[in-house]
């Protein structure tokens, strides 16, 4: 088997290699097996009951789905980013809600603590989080600040050796579950020399006086993922709870969202794959007019388009991860992958429901859930419009 094709370009050797490593293939296989036997049987039930399952989350922790890119020193799995993305993709292929718990748990919960935390903070929180025994939230969004962080109103004021936080956050994933250990919260801590607000991130443990996390109910999608409103009412934390340095908050948020976009893209890709698989199987079995509906060009072309777009999405996303793993700039590609894979799942889930006919509108068929779960991907961690703004800036508009 030819593994690598070598080209000569500008006197340099260029290697193009589309093979995954044996470990990456094994991760895909094992996570797929886990998702099919542990998540698939309960996904519908949890979605209907709008119930977050800490049992299932702990099980996902046991096989190592938390702290995937974290070093072994903190009990992480020390894997590359592609491995993490493959794992999210495989979970999303079966259920968007559990994929959300994993993606937010890693990229938003564990990520900022790992990349920006002090040694002491890392020692204190990461092992429990990486073992999947606890969850952590990342609070940016506020009622008045969604796409525009400039609308933030949450403040932190220094008082001796403590900071006093006041304000609220909304839509914060994993922040009000029965296994949430705490949250990272962004607050305004002053004004910069250019007149803009100075942002700083703080660690707030669950149970801190004045801090309340309330689960948000009646969601259309991600119904078994935990989403919370956070209230800070004169919450006092020691100065040692600052993540990194005072004033680092804005930069930390940007870095976190760059990585987070890859995991949202993985959810889009995995969800598209799951919806496509279901639609293809259904179309091969369902007969109308004396033959399987997959034989009708109108149906076959929808499936052909889906297969093609999934292939494009996977190549785009893995390339963005490859850039990140090779410490190259990946921000533009991450925004492209997030945007493309989210919208891709929208098109594929729409086809999948259409191919299922009336049955696709019923909850017994997974495509109904996929169709709903997709919509978040166009909105969370930077809306599709915001991704287009980001890409336009990178290309010089």
């Amino acid at each position: 088997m030819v593994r690598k094709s070598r080209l000569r370009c500008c006197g340099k050797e260029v290697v193009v290699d589309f093979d995954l490593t044996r470990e990456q293939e094994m991760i895909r296989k094992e996570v797929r097996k886990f998702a099919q036997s542990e998540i698939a049987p309960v996904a519908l039930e949890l979605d209907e009951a709008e119930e977050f399952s800490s049992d299932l989350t702990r099980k996902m922790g046991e096989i190592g789905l938390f702290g995937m890119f974290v070093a072994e020193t903190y009990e992480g799995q020390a894997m590359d980013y592609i491995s993490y993305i493959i794992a999210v993709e495989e979970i999303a292929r079966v259920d968007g809600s559990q994929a959300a718990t994993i993606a937010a748990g890693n990229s938003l919960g564990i990520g900022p603590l790992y990349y920006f935390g002090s040694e002491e903070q890392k020692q204190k929180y990461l092992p429990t989080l990486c073992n999947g025994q606890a969850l952590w939230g990342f609070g940016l969004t506020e009622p008045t600040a969604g796409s525009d962080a400039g609308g933030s109103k949450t403040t932190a004021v220094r008082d001796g050796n403590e900071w006093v936080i006041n304000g609220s956050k909304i839509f914060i994933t994993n922040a009000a579950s029965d296994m949430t250990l705490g949250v990272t919260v962004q607050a305004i801590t002053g004004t910069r020399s250019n007149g803009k607000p100075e942002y700083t991130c703080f660690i707030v443990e669950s149970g801190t006086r004045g801090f309340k996390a309330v689960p948000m109910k009646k969601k259309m999608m991600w119904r078994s993922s935990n989403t919370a409103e956070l209230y800070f009412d004169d919450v006092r934390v020691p100065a040692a709870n600052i993540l990194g340095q005072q004033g680092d908050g804005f930069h930390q948020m940007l870095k976190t969202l760059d990585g987070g976009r890859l995991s949202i893209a993985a959810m889009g890709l995995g969800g598209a794959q799951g919806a496509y698989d279901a639609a293809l199987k259904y179309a091969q079995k369902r007969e109308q007019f004396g033959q399987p509906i997959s034989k009708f060009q109108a149906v076959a072309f929808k499936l052909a388009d889906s297969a093609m777009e999934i292939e494009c999405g996977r190549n785009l996303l893995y390339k963005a991860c490859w850039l990140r793993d090779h410490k190259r700039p990946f921000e533009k590609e991450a925004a492209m992958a997030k945007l493309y894979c989210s919208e891709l799942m929208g098109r594929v889930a729409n086809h999948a429901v259409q191919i299922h006919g009336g049955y696709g509108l019923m909850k017994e068929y997974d495509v109904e859930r996929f169709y709903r779960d997709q919509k978040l991907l166009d909105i969370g961690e930077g809306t599709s419009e915001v991704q287009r703004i980001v890409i336009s800036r990178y290309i010089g508009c």
Partner: protein
Amino acid sequence: MEIAVLLKQVPATESLIEIADGGTTIKTDGINWVMNPYDELAVEEALQIRAADGGTVTVFSLGPEKAVEALRTALAMGADTAVRIDPQGKPMDGLSTAKVLAGELKKGAFDLIIAGHRAVDDDNFQVGPAVAELMGIPHISMVIRQEVTDGRIRCTRTIDGGTLVLETALPALITTQRGLNEPRYASLPGIMKAKKKPIDTRALSETGTDPGEPMVRTIAMRLPPQRKGGRIIEGDSATAKAEALVKALREEAKVI
């Protein structure tokens, strides 16, 4: 306890099997390969015994380069070392496979050897018992429960309509049956750790075992007949439906 597990890589049960040109083998492109499910039970049981009594778990596979994946999965589940014997393209039947494996197992000092009672591809049901026979050790097949104490193993095995309790001295070989345990997943940290564990690869020609020519030759392979769709018996009442069913069973299917 020094434990050896015999394992084989087989096509996943959901794979679409097609017969290759020549009619005696299957097409292998596009097939998803997995560890034989009964061998997964064997790996799991070995790991549980090791957890209770200490020792090591060594997994053996006679198979092509691709079989490394199944060995890696066993290492990721927690096995200590792996041995792959490369058949170098030589055709093998159940007995020649057993000869090669027995030859390699004799080079170690294993207290217990665990194998699946069959591999779901060829359904030979032979390798485990044949290995025990060639090694001159006792074997107990289709085990659903086992207990090791003071150099002896006591096993519960399935028989038609019931179970049987058997005991023998170690070293011994047992084969697994569904119900023995619930195999664990190869965890992601396990996969990363397995990366650092070596796989000892031995070419058949280096083993010193001559398996001889296979005594069994495949002459033809056929797919099972397509299952016909079911039929729903119509009727106005339960009695009418039952009558129609009895009529169909008697006159059409001719089974009653």
